[in-house]
């Protein structure tokens, strides 16, 4: 058994408790098949719980099973540098392994001090007799990995867990896929997968999902994360190095210039959410600074991203991710487009970063060190835009979809991470899941 096969097998096994609970809820409802609806929710980036094996994977030992302990997100992750152990290693064949070959799997949503981003959503589903399952995604990995896991591994596995299937209603009858934030990129990827199951799903719904990227990730390549950087940002270089090993995070940038330009007329004709210029500009020249086609100056000394030898930034992964983002923003065939819906949240104030300006990093790249005495290379545009506080409304829809499929909703607050609990979002979901 390969490392990836072992990891997926363990991820299925660790989902069994949640599957049993799902099937229990499903079985307890006395509803005719026509009234049954099942929603699979894909959490946003960093919104899934990750667990790490306590022992090392052994290539020569098929059929291993492991004990696991939470690694994301716990207080120890934040306070005791557990985040260092999220680091990944890319092998020569492009396959990723987890640090020290200790498998990491995703199981359900994050839960910190009893707070989860989806508690209101599940209560809402229960009140409406909707069956629900929250499928944790390893947000460090590419969206396509979660897509393949769901279609090829999870769904067949779930069916094998149905007790007495000949006499039970099919839990995979009317299926709705809902993706929050980066989880919507997984839903989008499933829609475009060409898998035979896609035709059987009712609707594909994204909530606060970027289609043309957002500016937040660009900061992390040079600034790390303020919650993980430690006192006085002492661990900032290490956190940057760890984050640079996550292939999934390379998919969160503003879309490349050609992709943006292909939809620029639609993006510029979006009422108060219109955007007229490319959202990533060079700070000096105000010319586009395409995150997926980074230029350098002076023989590579002046750079957009840190040199690989300093942080492990992976330009091959960046290039591959650019193609993914471009493909996820492409217009859909009519049959698929008719099933696709984007909910974009709009807060009460225009308070969402909508574009960035970029300075070149220059030798000796002291921007990466702490304390950083220079201005950071990524500068947010002070002109805020309508949005959910993280995703501007202009990016949270596939521009080529009909406008009645990309309705904005007015949020009660600006909390992107908790928007799946917002009454306006749930009302819109209720209209889409009749």
């Amino acid at each position, binding site marked *: 058994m390969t490392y990836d096969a072992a990891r997926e097998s363990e991820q299925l096994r660790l989902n069994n408790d949640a599957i049993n609970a799902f099937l229990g809820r499903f079985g307890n409802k006395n509803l005719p098949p026509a009234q049954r609806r099942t929603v699979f929710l894909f959490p946003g980036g960093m919104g899934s719980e990750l667990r790490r094996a306590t022992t090392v994977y052994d290539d020569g030992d098929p059929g291993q099973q492991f004990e696991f302990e939470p690694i994301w997100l716990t207080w120890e992750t934040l306070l005791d540098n557990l985040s260092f152990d999220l680091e990944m290693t890319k092998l020569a064949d492009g396959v990723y392994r987890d640090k020290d070959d200790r498998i990491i799997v995703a199981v359900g949503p994050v839960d910190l001090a009893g707070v989860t981003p989806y508690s209101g959503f599940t209560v809402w589903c229960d009140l409406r007799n909707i069956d629900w399952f929250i499928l944790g995604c390893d947000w460090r990995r590419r969206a396509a990995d979660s897509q393949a896991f769901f279609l090829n591994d999870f769904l067949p596995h779930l069916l094998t867990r149905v007790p007495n299937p000949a006499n039970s209603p099919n839990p995979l009858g009317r299926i709705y896929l809902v993706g929050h934030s980066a989880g919507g990129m997984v839903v989008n990827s499933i829609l475009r997968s060409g898998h035979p199951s896609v035709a059987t799903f009712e609707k594909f719904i994204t909530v606060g999902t970027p289609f043309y990227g957002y500016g937040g990730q660009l900061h992390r390549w040079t600034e790390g*994360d303020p919650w993980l950087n430690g006192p006085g940002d002492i661990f900032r270089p290490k956190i940057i190095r760890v984050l640079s090993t996550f292939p999934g995070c390379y998919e969160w940038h503003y879309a490349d210039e050609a992709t943006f330009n292909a939809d620029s007329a639609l993006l510029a004709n979006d009422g108060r959410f219109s955007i007229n210029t490319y959202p990533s500009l060079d700070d000096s020249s105000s010319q586009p600074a395409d995150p997926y086609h980074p230029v350098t100056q002076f023989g590579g000394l002046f750079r957009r991203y840190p040199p690989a030898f300093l942080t492990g930034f992976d330009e091959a992964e960046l290039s591959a991710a650019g193609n993914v983002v471009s493909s996820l923003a492409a217009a859909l065939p009519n049959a698929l487009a008719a099933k696709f819906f984007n909910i974009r949240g709009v807060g009460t104030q225009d308070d969402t970063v909508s574009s960035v300006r970029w300075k070149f990093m220059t030798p000796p790249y002291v921007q990466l060190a702490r304390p950083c005495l220079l201005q950071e290379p990524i500068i947010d545009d002070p002109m805020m835009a309508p949005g959910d506080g993280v995703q501007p409304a202009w990016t949270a829809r596939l521009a080529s979809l009909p406008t009645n499929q990309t309705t904005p909703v007015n949020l009660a607050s600006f909390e*992107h991470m908790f928007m799946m609990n917002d009454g306006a979002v749930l009302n819109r979901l209720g209209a889409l899941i009749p």
Partner: protein
Amino acid sequence: MTESPKHEELMSREEALGLVRKWQSEIKRMKSVERGKYIEEKLAALGPDAQRLARRILNDLLKPPQKT
């Protein structure tokens, strides 16, 4: 119907980051066996504010501070 957490349900970013940085700093000086107990005690002392802190952290993970 459930509403989103209001701002007052979130600890302020400054207060939350200050707490986290202070605890990170103190934990660094402890032996590993003492750290779990230290975290438990700090969270217990926070009481209901532990949830306000958790909401702030979860909320801000996807929302780097604006650098203008």
